């Protein structure tokens, strides 16, 4: 599959199909550049081949900038493969809670059971600030855990 110039026999198709079907059902995408061989045997009768397959799932695929073999031969019959991950030009914004769809009845029940962390009677300013941070995080987490995430598109604003 990564070698478009090669004609596969039925047996070879059957063998490779087991690997590829498993990967593509996940789903994974083949990163290999078509036609780039990854294995060169040093005798004259063996053919070039693409034994080294690299697959990425659909979430990682936008981050794959290149799949290349820029490193010169190291003496191995395989070629070093360099995969470069980079942030895509258009990156989807982080998911945000959809407050309009918040189920307040569930939140109200959870809020009744919620208790703030214990705070000592005499505390320092730093300890009080830490207590406030922890309480705020716990309360925010409680709220966001009951709110569904917005369905964002790459063009959504960051807020």
């Amino acid at each position: 599959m990564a070698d478009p110039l090669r004609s596969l026999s039925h047996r070879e198709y059957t063998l490779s199909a087991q690997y590829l079907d498993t990967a593509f059902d996940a789903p994974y995408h083949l990163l290999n550049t078509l036609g780039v061989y990854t294995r060169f045997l040093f005798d004259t009768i063996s053919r070039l081949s693409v034994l080294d397959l690299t697959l990425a799932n659909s979430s990682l695929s936008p981050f794959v900038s290149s799949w290349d073999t820029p490193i010169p031969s190291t003496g191995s019959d395989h070629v070093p493969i360099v995969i470069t991950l980079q942030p895509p030009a258009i990156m989807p914004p982080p998911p945000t809670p959809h407050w309009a769809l918040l189920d307040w009845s569930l939140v109200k029940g959870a809020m009744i059971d919620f208790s703030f962390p214990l705070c000592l009677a005499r505390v320092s300013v730093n300890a009080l600030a830490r207590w406030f941070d922890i309480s705020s995080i716990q309360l925010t987490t409680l709220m966001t855990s009951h709110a569904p995430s917005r369905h964002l598109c790459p063009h959504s604003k960051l807020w």
Partner: protein
Amino acid sequence: MENLLTRFTDSQAFFQSFPIVLHNCSGSWGIFLSLFHSFTVLPYPPLIVAIQNPPSRRFVLLTFLGFISLAPPPPGRSCVAIYIAHSLNLHLSCTTVFHDTLEIIYEDIFSPEGLFRSPTAPLGLSRYTSSQPTAPPTVQYLPKMFSPSCTLTLSQVILTFTT
């Protein structure tokens, strides 16, 4: 190597590019050293080097300056190994998961801010090699089975099949 380490201190470059190198060293020290010394041709040094058939001496992997070497523990000669750049290990959480065979290694890389400062899950890298070309791969080879933390957010995984 000094050049590589200097570039690692540039945090902007660190996050803008995440190079991964895959290679088969055929158990040869010469190939291993040739590979690591040839990283100077790359615009950015690799942060992860996943090797098939790494060279070892008495089941101990070769090391290289600036990298941490990881492979399934003895007994037995490991078929796979992962080398992680020190700088990556300092900045992000790297967890190695070994399978009960010597042919699979899985690396889970987690950043609280997300890789590339994006809302992403851990990056998982699995190096898989099969000594039995006719054996069909099964679902158990998929990385989500290796790391429970990735099961819910299997969003960034590279899976390398080498038959």
